[in-house]
């Protein structure tokens, strides 16, 4: 079930294999008024929950411990659901960015997180998505 990401409390899915980092994200997102519907650790689980629950936002770690990395999982999600995807990464070097550009995405958040950066990146991603939806409906 989808909600309007801007006007109501958005629902987010976290795909992150470090439990403590995922928990920090959950806390930070709840302080931004975002409900975390699930925090999973593998790309496979991420694809399954994203397609079933259709969240308003997916925060996806690029390096995941399973067979499927974050970029592959994001690609599969985007094939089935139109949802803003924001990558989580420890690095913003050229190779990582190029790898992420293999899929359509709505931003990067560098780990460790910064309050201002997290908020602005998510805000931009949600607004871009809202504009996209509005353009499609016209």
């Amino acid at each position, binding site marked *: 079930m989808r909600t309007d990401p801007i006007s109501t409390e958005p629902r987010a899915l976290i795909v992150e294999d470090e439990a*403590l980092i995922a*928990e920090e994200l959950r806390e930070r997102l709840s302080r931004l008024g975002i409900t975390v519907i699930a925090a999973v650790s593998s790309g496979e689980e991420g694809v399954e929950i994203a397609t079933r629950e259709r969240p308003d936002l997916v925060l996806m770690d690029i390096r995941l411990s399973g067979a499927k990395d974050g970029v592959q999982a994001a690609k599969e999600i985007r094939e089935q659901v139109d949802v803003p995807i924001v990558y989580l990464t420890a690095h913003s070097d050229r190779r990582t960015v190029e790898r992420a550009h293999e899929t359509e995405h709505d931003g990067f958040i560098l780990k460790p997180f910064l309050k*201002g950066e997290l908020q602005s990146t998510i805000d931009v991603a949600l607004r871009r998505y809202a504009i996209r939806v509005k353009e499609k409906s016209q």
Partner: protein
Amino acid sequence: MSLLSARSDSFVPSRFLKNQFFAISMGAVFTAVILITWPKIGSWLLSANFLPHAYCYLKNPVLVWTHVIADSLIAISIFAISLTLGHLGYKGRRDIPFHWMFLAFGLFILGCGGTHLVEGITVWVPVYVLAAAVKLFTAAVSLTTAAVLPFTVPHVFELIQLARATEQETAELRASEERKDALLQEVHHRVKNNLAVICSLFYLESIHSRHEDTAETFRDMENRVHSMALVHESLYGAENLARIDFAEYARSLAEDILASHGSPSVPVRLKTELEPVTMGADLAIPCGLILNELVSNAFKHGFPEGTEGEIKLTLRSDTGGRYTLCVQDSGVGIPTGLDFKTNQSLGLKLVRLLTQQIRGSFELVRSDPGTVAHLHFEVNQNAY
């Protein structure tokens, strides 16, 4: 067996062959000198009691000039080639294997050039004895070269094998270097990821703390670890994985500190004037921690209750590889009577300890307006 030892054992021909070649060559040169300098032999050599070659050509001008021009051109070309070979053999005597072979070929070609030169002369001047002497000299040198050349063939094949082995070893070394870089990059990634986990722990502790002071302490700790994580972020993206662009690092760190402390509504601007310099993690981490304290202090204590202002970050080079990092704020200034050398706050204590660690010096003074902190330190251009 190392490549160098293989080269020294395999590519110098036997002393016997070298001695033989030089003995015959020197004999040929000695004979030529004697023949020219001894007057009777000289006059005999230059005796011209024969018919010149022009008669054989029936003095046909086309035939005569064709022979003369062709012989002259061959002689000039051959002298030029022998000079080049001689120069190459001499200059490369320490580096080129078989450099003496170049000298031998040079001498042999020189003899050939001499025979063509004399051929040109004998068209009009029948110095056939001189022509015979030059041919004899050429025969001696060419015979020596021809006799020695086969002995070098095995060494040439060894040289080719060595070149192939060297090429393979170079490729293996390059692959090993790439593996090492990938491993080092993975280490930086894991270190940064672990530091991110530590930041998460501090954050979680800070939000579960009941007292604001305790929460503030955990937030400070989170920022300190964040400044260390940023060094590994810079190292991960750095070309040599060992030294970071400190100017870029300092700018990112200062921006991050302002982003984490402030909110878009807090009007504190950041201004930077940073000279480029690279340094290893050993220096970058303590400098980053000091910078974290100075910028955090400027933000927290310089602008109470959200007052407007500016924090200026400057990095400039002094003499002798020394640099000065300045953090200047336009805030309310440090309290009168604050002595940073004895102050017991953890932030200033960290600054003192870390300044000592990098063998630097530190000053904190009131400016008009605000406060300015100077950190002086030396950057070793070779340290990692």
